[in-house]
Protein backbone atom coordinates (compact mmCIF):
# COMPACT_ATOMS: atom_id res chain seq x y z
CA UNK A 1 0.00 0.00 0.00
CA UNK A 2 1.73 3.11 -1.26
CA UNK A 3 1.15 6.32 0.64
CA UNK A 4 -0.07 9.19 -1.55
CA UNK A 5 2.00 12.36 -1.19
CA UNK A 6 0.15 15.57 -2.04
CA UNK A 7 1.77 18.88 -2.77
CA UNK A 8 -0.02 21.66 -0.95
CA UNK A 9 1.69 24.98 -1.60
CA UNK A 10 5.13 24.89 0.02
CA UNK A 11 4.28 21.71 1.95
CA UNK A 12 4.06 18.02 1.25
CA UNK A 13 1.24 16.08 2.87
CA UNK A 14 1.66 12.31 3.19
CA UNK A 15 -1.65 10.87 4.14
CA UNK A 16 -1.55 7.26 5.29
CA UNK A 17 -4.74 5.54 4.14
CA UNK A 18 -4.36 2.02 5.48
CA UNK A 19 -2.15 -0.28 7.51
CA UNK A 20 1.42 -0.15 6.31
CA UNK A 21 4.00 -2.89 6.00
CA UNK A 22 7.58 -2.14 7.01
CA UNK A 23 8.56 -1.87 3.35
CA UNK A 24 5.82 0.74 2.76
CA UNK A 25 7.14 2.85 5.63
CA UNK A 26 10.66 2.72 4.23
CA UNK A 27 9.31 3.64 0.78
CA UNK A 28 7.45 6.59 2.31
CA UNK A 29 10.61 7.77 4.08
CA UNK A 30 12.62 7.62 0.88
CA UNK A 31 9.94 9.26 -1.26
CA UNK A 32 9.53 12.18 1.16
CA UNK A 33 13.26 12.79 1.43
CA UNK A 34 13.46 12.82 -2.36
CA UNK A 35 10.38 14.91 -3.08
CA UNK A 36 11.14 17.58 -0.51
CA UNK A 37 13.98 18.50 -2.87
CA UNK A 38 12.06 18.00 -6.11
CA UNK A 39 9.31 20.38 -5.02
CA UNK A 40 11.56 22.58 -2.86
CA UNK A 41 9.10 22.08 -0.03
CA UNK A 42 9.42 23.89 3.27
CA UNK A 43 7.65 21.30 5.32
CA UNK A 44 6.29 17.76 5.44
CA UNK A 45 3.07 16.76 7.18
CA UNK A 46 2.61 13.04 7.83
CA UNK A 47 -1.01 12.22 8.63
CA UNK A 48 -1.24 8.95 10.59
CA UNK A 49 -4.93 9.23 11.52
CA UNK A 50 -5.68 5.95 9.72
CA UNK A 51 -2.89 4.02 11.43
CA UNK A 52 -4.31 1.77 14.12
CA UNK A 53 -0.89 0.62 15.31
CA UNK A 54 2.35 2.53 15.70
CA UNK A 55 4.89 -0.02 16.84
CA UNK A 56 8.63 0.37 17.42
CA UNK A 57 9.46 0.04 13.74
CA UNK A 58 6.88 2.62 12.65
CA UNK A 59 8.09 5.05 15.32
CA UNK A 60 11.70 4.55 14.37
CA UNK A 61 10.84 5.24 10.72
CA UNK A 62 8.86 8.37 11.63
CA UNK A 63 11.88 9.61 13.63
CA UNK A 64 14.11 8.89 10.66
CA UNK A 65 11.76 10.81 8.37
CA UNK A 66 11.88 13.82 10.70
CA UNK A 67 15.70 13.70 10.93
CA UNK A 68 16.22 13.24 7.22
CA UNK A 69 13.77 16.00 6.30
CA UNK A 70 15.47 18.31 8.79
CA UNK A 71 18.82 17.59 7.17
CA UNK A 72 17.25 18.47 3.84
CA UNK A 73 16.35 21.85 5.32
CA UNK A 74 12.63 21.41 5.89
CA UNK A 75 10.28 20.78 8.83
CA UNK A 76 8.25 17.69 9.68
CA UNK A 77 5.14 17.32 11.78
CA UNK A 78 3.21 14.13 12.53
CA UNK A 79 -0.53 14.60 12.81
CA UNK A 80 -3.47 12.45 13.89
CA UNK A 81 -2.04 9.98 16.42
CA UNK A 82 -5.17 8.35 17.85
CA UNK A 83 -5.70 8.19 21.63
CA UNK A 84 -5.44 4.38 21.84
CA UNK A 85 -2.34 4.47 19.69
CA UNK A 86 -0.76 7.10 21.94
CA UNK A 87 -1.58 4.94 24.97
CA UNK A 88 0.05 1.88 23.39
CA UNK A 89 3.12 3.85 22.36
CA UNK A 90 3.66 5.08 25.91
CA UNK A 91 3.26 1.55 27.30
CA UNK A 92 5.74 0.31 24.75
CA UNK A 93 8.17 3.06 25.74
CA UNK A 94 8.01 4.98 22.45
CA UNK A 95 8.07 8.71 23.01
CA UNK A 96 8.85 9.92 19.49
CA UNK A 97 11.07 12.55 21.10
CA UNK A 98 12.40 15.30 18.93
CA UNK A 99 9.54 14.86 16.48
CA UNK A 100 6.81 17.51 16.33
CA UNK A 101 3.28 16.14 16.73
CA UNK A 102 -0.02 17.99 16.62
CA UNK A 103 -3.66 16.94 16.85
CA UNK A 104 -4.81 16.90 13.24
CA UNK A 105 -4.15 18.11 9.71
CA UNK A 106 -5.64 21.55 10.40
CA UNK A 107 -3.29 22.07 13.33
CA UNK A 108 -0.49 20.63 11.24
CA UNK A 109 -0.92 23.30 8.56
CA UNK A 110 -1.04 26.04 11.20
CA UNK A 111 2.08 24.63 12.80
CA UNK A 112 3.87 24.61 9.46
CA UNK A 113 2.90 28.20 8.73
CA UNK A 114 4.27 29.33 12.09
CA UNK A 115 7.47 27.32 11.79
CA UNK A 116 8.32 28.27 8.22
CA UNK A 117 7.48 31.95 8.83
CA UNK A 118 9.89 32.00 11.76
CA UNK A 119 12.49 30.25 9.63
CA UNK A 120 12.13 32.83 6.86
CA UNK A 121 12.44 35.61 9.41
CA UNK A 122 15.62 34.11 10.81
CA UNK A 123 17.01 33.37 7.39
CA UNK A 124 16.47 36.70 5.72
CA UNK A 125 16.84 39.02 8.69
CA UNK A 126 14.63 41.98 9.51
Amino acid at each position, binding site marked *: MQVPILKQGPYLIASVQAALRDADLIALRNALTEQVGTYRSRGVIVDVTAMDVLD*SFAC*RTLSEIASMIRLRGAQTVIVGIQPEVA*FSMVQLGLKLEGVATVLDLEEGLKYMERRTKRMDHGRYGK
Partner: protein
Amino acid sequence: MLHMTKTQSAECSRVRQATVPVTSDVDIVLARQRGRELASEAEFTAVESTFIATAISELGRNILQHAGEGEVSIRIEKQEDGTVLIVVARDHGPGIPNVNRALQDGFSTSGGLGLGLPGVRRLMDEFEIVSHRNHGTTVIAKKWARGCTIGRLGRTARASFERRDGAAGRKFAAVGSATR
Protein backbone atom coordinates in the same frame (compact mmCIF):
# COMPACT_ATOMS: atom_id res chain seq x y z
CA MET B 1 -29.27 -3.73 23.73
CA LEU B 2 -29.89 -6.54 26.17
CA HIS B 3 -30.33 -8.94 23.31
CA MET B 4 -27.05 -7.85 21.80
CA THR B 5 -25.20 -8.43 25.05
CA LYS B 6 -26.58 -11.94 25.21
CA THR B 7 -25.51 -12.71 21.66
CA GLN B 8 -22.07 -11.36 22.38
CA SER B 9 -21.58 -13.51 25.44
CA ALA B 10 -22.78 -16.56 23.49
CA GLU B 11 -20.13 -15.75 20.90
CA CYS B 12 -17.47 -15.49 23.56
CA SER B 13 -18.19 -18.90 25.03
CA ARG B 14 -16.94 -20.44 21.81
CA VAL B 15 -13.21 -20.73 21.44
CA ARG B 16 -12.16 -18.43 18.64
CA GLN B 17 -8.73 -18.58 17.16
CA ALA B 18 -6.46 -17.76 14.24
CA THR B 19 -2.99 -18.81 13.20
CA VAL B 20 -0.90 -16.64 10.91
CA PRO B 21 2.38 -17.97 9.46
CA VAL B 22 4.97 -15.19 9.54
CA THR B 23 7.41 -15.13 6.63
CA SER B 24 7.33 -11.48 5.51
CA ASP B 25 6.33 -8.02 6.72
CA VAL B 26 2.85 -8.42 5.19
CA ASP B 27 2.21 -11.22 7.69
CA ILE B 28 2.96 -8.90 10.61
CA VAL B 29 0.15 -6.65 9.44
CA LEU B 30 -2.12 -9.64 8.85
CA ALA B 31 -1.40 -11.11 12.29
CA ARG B 32 -2.11 -7.90 14.14
CA GLN B 33 -5.29 -7.35 12.15
CA ARG B 34 -6.51 -10.85 13.04
CA GLY B 35 -5.65 -10.16 16.67
CA ARG B 36 -7.61 -6.94 16.65
CA GLU B 37 -10.60 -8.61 14.99
CA LEU B 38 -10.67 -11.39 17.56
CA ALA B 39 -10.27 -8.91 20.42
CA SER B 40 -13.04 -6.65 19.12
CA GLU B 41 -15.41 -9.59 18.60
CA ALA B 42 -14.85 -10.50 22.23
CA GLU B 43 -15.38 -7.93 24.95
CA PHE B 44 -12.06 -6.10 24.71
CA THR B 45 -12.09 -2.30 24.76
CA ALA B 46 -10.62 -0.22 21.95
CA VAL B 47 -7.53 0.50 24.04
CA GLU B 48 -7.04 -3.17 24.92
CA SER B 49 -7.47 -4.17 21.27
CA THR B 50 -4.82 -1.66 20.26
CA PHE B 51 -2.47 -2.94 22.98
CA ILE B 52 -2.97 -6.46 21.65
CA ALA B 53 -2.44 -5.44 18.01
CA THR B 54 0.74 -3.54 18.93
CA ALA B 55 2.08 -6.46 20.97
CA ILE B 56 1.42 -8.87 18.09
CA SER B 57 3.20 -6.49 15.74
CA GLU B 58 6.30 -6.50 17.96
CA LEU B 59 6.24 -10.28 18.36
CA GLY B 60 5.81 -10.79 14.62
CA ARG B 61 8.74 -8.55 13.86
CA ASN B 62 10.90 -10.38 16.42
CA ILE B 63 10.18 -13.62 14.58
CA LEU B 64 11.06 -12.10 11.23
CA GLN B 65 14.24 -10.41 12.43
CA HIS B 66 15.69 -13.16 14.54
CA ALA B 67 14.38 -16.38 13.05
CA GLY B 68 13.27 -15.44 9.55
CA GLU B 69 10.00 -17.30 9.88
CA GLY B 70 7.56 -18.64 12.39
CA GLU B 71 3.94 -18.25 13.32
CA VAL B 72 1.64 -16.27 15.53
CA SER B 73 -1.48 -17.87 16.90
CA ILE B 74 -4.16 -15.97 18.69
CA ARG B 75 -7.07 -17.44 20.56
CA ILE B 76 -9.83 -16.20 22.76
CA GLU B 77 -10.85 -18.24 25.74
CA LYS B 78 -13.88 -17.58 27.82
CA GLN B 79 -12.93 -18.81 31.24
CA GLU B 80 -14.93 -18.85 34.41
CA ASP B 81 -13.13 -15.78 35.66
CA GLY B 82 -13.19 -13.75 32.47
CA THR B 83 -12.29 -13.59 28.82
CA VAL B 84 -8.66 -13.91 27.92
CA LEU B 85 -6.85 -13.45 24.63
CA ILE B 86 -3.76 -15.58 24.28
CA VAL B 87 -1.02 -14.83 21.78
CA VAL B 88 1.55 -17.52 21.07
CA ALA B 89 4.49 -16.45 18.89
CA ARG B 90 6.66 -19.38 17.91
CA ASP B 91 9.78 -19.73 15.82
CA HIS B 92 12.49 -22.30 15.24
CA GLY B 93 15.29 -19.79 15.00
CA PRO B 94 18.58 -19.54 16.91
CA GLY B 95 16.89 -18.85 20.24
CA ILE B 96 17.66 -16.06 22.68
CA PRO B 97 21.01 -16.63 24.44
CA ASN B 98 20.09 -14.47 27.41
CA VAL B 99 16.39 -14.11 28.02
CA ASN B 100 16.80 -11.79 31.00
CA ARG B 101 18.85 -9.41 28.94
CA ALA B 102 16.34 -9.52 26.08
CA LEU B 103 13.70 -8.43 28.58
CA GLN B 104 15.65 -5.32 29.54
CA ASP B 105 14.63 -2.01 28.02
CA GLY B 106 17.13 -0.78 25.51
CA PHE B 107 18.82 -4.11 24.89
CA SER B 108 18.88 -4.95 21.22
CA THR B 109 20.92 -7.24 19.02
CA SER B 110 19.18 -6.14 15.83
CA GLY B 111 19.88 -2.42 15.89
CA GLY B 112 16.34 -1.67 16.98
CA LEU B 113 15.27 0.32 19.99
CA GLY B 114 15.33 -2.77 22.17
CA LEU B 115 11.79 -2.15 23.31
CA GLY B 116 10.18 -5.16 21.66
CA LEU B 117 9.97 -7.82 24.36
CA PRO B 118 9.89 -5.54 27.43
CA GLY B 119 7.28 -3.46 25.62
CA VAL B 120 5.10 -6.48 24.89
CA ARG B 121 5.36 -7.40 28.55
CA ARG B 122 4.05 -3.97 29.52
CA LEU B 123 1.24 -4.05 26.95
CA MET B 124 -0.05 -7.47 28.02
CA ASP B 125 -1.12 -8.82 31.41
CA GLU B 126 0.82 -12.06 31.47
CA PHE B 127 4.01 -12.86 29.66
CA GLU B 128 6.07 -16.01 29.37
CA ILE B 129 9.06 -16.77 27.21
CA VAL B 130 10.72 -20.09 26.55
CA SER B 131 13.84 -20.13 24.42
CA HIS B 132 16.21 -22.95 23.58
CA ARG B 133 19.45 -22.40 21.78
CA ASN B 134 19.11 -23.51 18.15
CA HIS B 135 15.58 -24.75 18.78
CA GLY B 136 13.73 -21.51 18.73
CA THR B 137 11.67 -19.28 20.92
CA THR B 138 8.08 -19.32 22.08
CA VAL B 139 6.46 -16.29 23.63
CA ILE B 140 3.07 -16.63 25.29
CA ALA B 141 1.34 -13.37 26.15
CA LYS B 142 -2.13 -13.01 27.60
CA LYS B 143 -4.52 -10.15 27.97
CA TRP B 144 -7.67 -10.25 30.06
CA ALA B 145 -10.72 -8.38 28.77
CA ARG B 146 -11.84 -5.17 30.42
CA GLY B 147 -9.08 -4.53 32.83
CA CYS B 148 -8.84 -7.87 34.58
CA THR B 149 -5.20 -6.92 34.80
CA ILE B 150 -2.41 -7.83 37.10
CA GLY B 151 -1.07 -4.30 36.93
CA ARG B 152 -1.91 -3.51 40.51
CA LEU B 153 0.11 -6.48 41.68
CA GLY B 154 3.14 -5.51 39.69
CA ARG B 155 4.27 -7.03 36.47
CA THR B 156 5.67 -10.50 36.48
CA ALA B 157 7.39 -12.41 33.74
CA ARG B 158 6.04 -15.76 34.69
CA ALA B 159 2.89 -15.80 36.67
CA SER B 160 -0.55 -17.25 36.58
CA PHE B 161 -3.38 -15.62 38.34
CA GLU B 162 -6.54 -16.61 40.00
CA ARG B 163 -9.38 -14.18 40.25
CA ARG B 164 -11.92 -14.13 43.00
CA ASP B 165 -14.92 -11.90 43.32
CA GLY B 166 -14.94 -10.17 46.64
CA ALA B 167 -17.62 -7.97 48.16
CA ALA B 168 -15.47 -4.90 47.61
CA GLY B 169 -15.02 -5.74 43.97
CA ARG B 170 -12.59 -7.96 42.17
CA LYS B 171 -9.70 -9.32 44.06
CA PHE B 172 -6.67 -10.91 42.52
CA ALA B 173 -4.38 -13.48 44.00
CA ALA B 174 -1.14 -14.67 42.53
CA VAL B 175 -0.66 -18.41 42.36
CA GLY B 176 2.37 -18.49 40.11
CA SER B 177 5.95 -17.68 40.83
CA ALA B 178 7.31 -14.36 39.74
CA THR B 179 10.79 -14.06 38.36
CA ARG B 180 10.98 -10.36 38.99
